[in-house]
C-alpha cells in the first residue's frame, strides 16, 4: 500500500493548561477529500492550524514521505500544504490581485497562477484592483481560495469555508472543489455543517473535546451515528 500524502500521528496540542487536541491521528491520501467535523470547541480548527504549522505539537506529521513536524508554516507551503483559514484572513491593505499574488511567494511549480484563478472565478479579473474590504463575504472567500491555489498545493486545508455565508454562496464555493480534485489537489476540510461536509468527503473524522470519536467513510455510518459522535451522546442518551 502506498504511503498516504499526509500522515499525522498522535497529535497533542495544549493551550496553556487546556488540552485542545489529545493524541489525534489522521491520514489523507492523494486525490482524497477528507472532512473533519465536530461542534464548536471540538479542536477542528486547532487540528488544521497544527497541520499548517501554526501550533507546536507533540506527535509526528509526515507529508509526502517527509517529516515536517518541526517545519515552520511558510516552509510547509513550499512542501505543498496551503490553507484557507477561518474568517478568510485576507490582507486588508492589499488589492484583490495583490492578495492572490502574495500566495506565490513560496509557491511550488505548477499550473495554478493568477490567470488560472481568474478563469476559475470569472468575476475577479474586472475587480482585481479593488481593496478586498470592498468585496462581499463570498467573494472574499473565493479570493482566499485563489490565494491558496497559486501556491500550487498538493493538500488544501479548508477551515470553515461556509461560515457566515449564504447557502447559495456556499454552494458556489463547494462547486469549485471537484475542479480542484481533478487537478490533483487533495483536500482536508473542517466544517460544522456535517451534511455539507459528508456530501463531498471520501472519508471523515469526528472530533469531540479534542479526541477522535468516529472515523470512516460517510457510507459506513448513519446520520444518527454521526450526530451521536458529534454531540457525545451514548446510545442510551439517544433513546
Amino acid at each position, binding site marked *: 500500500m502506498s504511503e498516504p500524502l499526509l500522515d499525522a500521528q498522535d497529535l497533542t496540542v495544549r493551550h496553556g493548561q487546556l488540552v485542545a487536541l489529545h493524541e489525534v491521528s489522521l491520514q489523507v491520501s492523494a486525490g482524497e477529500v477528507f472532512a473533519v467535523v465536530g461542534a464548536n470547541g471540538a479542536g477542528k480548527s486547532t487540528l488544521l492550524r497544527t497541520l499548517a504549522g501554526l501550533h507546536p505539537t507533540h506527535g509526528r506529521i509526515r507529508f509526502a514521505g517527509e517529516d515536517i513536524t518541526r517545519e*515552520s*508554516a*511558510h516552509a510547509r*507551503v513550499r512542501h505543498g500544504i496551503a490553507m484557507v483559514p477561518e474568517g478568510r484572513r485576507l*490582507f*486588508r*491593505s492589499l488589492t484583490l490581485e495583490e492578495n492572490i499574488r502574495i*500566495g506565490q511567494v513560496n509557491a511550488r511549480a505548477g499550473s495554478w497562477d493568477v490567470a488560472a484563478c481568474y478563469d476559475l472565478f470569472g468575476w475577479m479579473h474586472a475587480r482585481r484592483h479593488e481593496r478586498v474590504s470592498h468585496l462581499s463575504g463570498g467573494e472574499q472567500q473565493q479570493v482566499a481560495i485563489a490565494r491558496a491555489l497559486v501556491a500550487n498545493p498538493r493538500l488544501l486545508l479548508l477551515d470553515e469555508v461556509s461560515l457566515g455565508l449564504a447557502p447559495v454562496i456556499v454552494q458556489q464555493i463547494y462547486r469549485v472543489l471537484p475542479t480542484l480534485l481533478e487537478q490533483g489537489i487533495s483536500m482536508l476540510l473542517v466544517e460544522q455543517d456535517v451534511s455539507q461536509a459528508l456530501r463531498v468527503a471520501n472519508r471523515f473524522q469526528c472530533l469531540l473535546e479534542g479526541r477522535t470519536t468516529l472515523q470512516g467513510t460517510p457510507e459506513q455510518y448513519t446520520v444518527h451515528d454521526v450526530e451521536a459522535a458529534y454531540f457525545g451522546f451514548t446510545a442510551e442518551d439517544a433513546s
Partner: protein
Amino acid sequence: MNWINAIIQGLMLGGLFALFACGLSLLFGVLGIINLAHGDLAVLGAYVAVALLPSVHSNALWALLFVPPMFAIFGYGAQRTLLQRSMQSGPLTTLLVTFGLSVVLQNALQEGFSADSHSLSVGSLVTKAFHPASSISISYLRLGILVAAVIILVTVQLFLAGTSTGRQIRALSDDVEAASIVGINTRHVAGVAAAIAFATVAVAGLADGMYAQFAPTSGSQLLLFGFEAVIIGGLGSLWGTLLGGCVLGLAQTIGAQADPTIGVLVAHLVFLAILAVRPSGLMPATVEA
C-alpha cells in the same frame, strides 16, 4: 516677507523631522514596535561618521555611502535577535527593550566620545544659500535635507507598493499569522523592514549632524520630534509622516518668527492641539475593516 521666509524655513525643517519620523513610522506600522531608542540610533549614526571619517574636516556627505548600509545590516540583525525575541513576549517587553537600548547607547557614546558636542563638517555647504528675494534665504544644505526626505519617503512608498517584498511587508503589517500561512518568511521580512527603518534613521542622524551640533544625550529630543511628526501625520502613514514633519517645522519657525523664545513651545502646542482634535492624525493609514 519675513513670514514667507519663516514658512520656507519651516518646510525645510519639516524635512528633517520627516526623516526622523520615517523609520519610526515604518517600525510601528509594520511591526508594532514603539522604538524608544530611535533618537539615540540617529545620534549613533552621526557618531559612526565621526569615528570612521578620516578627519574632523572630512566632508560628512561621504558618510552617506557607508553609514546607512551599516545601519541596515545592524537593523536586520537587531530585528532577528533582540526585537524578535522581545516581540514574542508582548509590546511592553519591546518598549522596555528599546528603552534599555536607548540607555545603553547614550552611556556607550558618553564613554566613547565624552559628553562634548560634535558636528559633522560639510565644508562651505553649511553656509551656502540663495536668495530669491531680499529677505528670503534658502540654505542649500537645508533644501537638500528636505529633498532627501521627500526622495526617501517616496522611494519607501514605491517600494512598499510596487515590489514583492514591499507587498510582503504590507501583508505582515496587516496580519502576521496569515502572512506565515501564505508562505511568507515573516522573520526575514520583518528584518528587511527593520533594515529600511534603521537605514533611514542613519540618514536622519547624519542630516542632523550636518545641520546642528549633537551630543550623546541629544537622542531624546530627536525622538520627541519624531514621535510628534508620526502622530500628527497619522500612525503607519508615510505620506502623513511627511505632512506631520512639515506641520511641526512650520509651527516651530512661525512661532519663532512671532517670538524667538517660543518656537519649540508652539510646535509642541500644535502637536497637542492636533492630538486633541484628530487623535488619528491628519492622514491616518487607510486600512478599512
